[in-house]
């Protein structure tokens, strides 16, 4: 009786199809991606039922952490250069071209303008350390926040203001920010929130 011969199959699989899928997905992700931007502090936004999306461009983003420190960022590298030049002129600080270039790469910062020079001299990974992220002063005596926003608005009228604050940020801080914005006649702005579903009320 002949033995049953088990046919030995090759273990090599045709990878072509898998490769196709992989690259298809890769293309999709490459085209749809806009990169997560690094933020100096972690902020946990409150959730809301609002479903309006924020536009991609022309955004002044204001970040407020739980302790009430304020960070500022405007998009567009050319605008940033103009912005710092303008702010430097207003506060009598002259920035070198190298510093301006460095500033144009900073996404969000939170230092008083007087410390901007030393801040820009730091390495980018050192900038977000707690001792270097001081927040922009925005009290009634020294309201640099107001100057930043109005300077940015002066450069680009289309800028929209988006405030991203932490759940635990205390109300007076927000009130102060809103008051500052009101002072410079910026009465429309966006509050960033995360999505929560609309409740059914039956």
């Amino acid at each position: 009786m002949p033995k049953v011969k088990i046919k030995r199959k090759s273990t090599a699989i045709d990878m072509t199809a898998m490769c196709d899928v992989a690259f298809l997905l890769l293309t999709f992700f490459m085209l749809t991606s806009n990169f997560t931007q690094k933020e100096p502090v972690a902020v946990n936004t409150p959730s809301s039922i609002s479903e309006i999306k924020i536009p991609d461009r022309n955004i002044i983003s204001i970040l407020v952490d739980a302790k009430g420190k304020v960070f500022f960022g405007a998009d567009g590298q050319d605008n940033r250069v103009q912005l710092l030049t303008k702010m430097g002129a207003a506060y009598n600080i002259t920035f070198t071209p190298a510093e301006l270039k460095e500033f144009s790469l900073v996404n969000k910062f939170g230092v008083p303008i007087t410390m901007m020079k030393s801040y820009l001299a730091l390495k980018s990974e050192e900038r977000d350390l707690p001792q270097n992220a001081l927040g922009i002063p925005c009290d009634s005596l020294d309201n640099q926040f107001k100057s930043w926003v109005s300077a940015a608005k002066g450069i680009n009228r289309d800028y929209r203001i988006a405030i991203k604050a932490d759940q635990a940020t205390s109300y007076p801080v927000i009130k102060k920010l809103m008051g500052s914005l009101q002072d410079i006649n910026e009465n429309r702005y966006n509050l960033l929130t995360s999505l929560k579903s609309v409740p059914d009320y039956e």
Partner: protein
Amino acid sequence: MSEVAAESQVKQKGKTKKMSTRVDFTPMVDLGFLLITFFMLATTLSKPQTMEIAMPSKEKVTEEDQTKIKASRAVTILLGKENKVFYYEGTRENNVDPVLNQTDFSPKGMRQFLIKKNYEIMVKVRELKAKKDAKKLSEQDFEKQKQELIGDKKAPIVLIKGTTDSSYKNLIDALDEMAICNIGRYAIVDITPFDLELLAKKL
């Protein structure tokens, strides 16, 4: 024998060896997935949600404007500490203080009161939305008619006032309730000594 061997060698030399056209794709797939992983981790697929608010400009807001609101329509929400909410209707009349009620932002709390207060408009908005969902109404018409409805003369006006102990989350929750209950007129205003007095009495 040796001849045969030599002959076969000659033959092999002349034959062009057929190479397999198959390429091993495994490293390429590896690379593909590596890049996919990178892009997946580095992207933000969902854009953050926003809430648009428009505040009144500073010059226009005067004491007179603030008191112009009819007391019967006014609802004041006070954001207290530890996520507590207080509300009262109207204002002090004939030396009688309005009743200050304590509640929270759960569906059974603040929302219940606002729904009761704004019931007629909510029903109308819901009918409108049903119409829109049934494709009988375009998006723009829906928005327009909704704005007309919620701007109704009899609709309540809500004043949101935060105490120093409240948080940003409370403010967003309060604004959310306005959206859920279709309240068209609301404002974020400063807390007054009168409100603090009421709160102090309650606590």
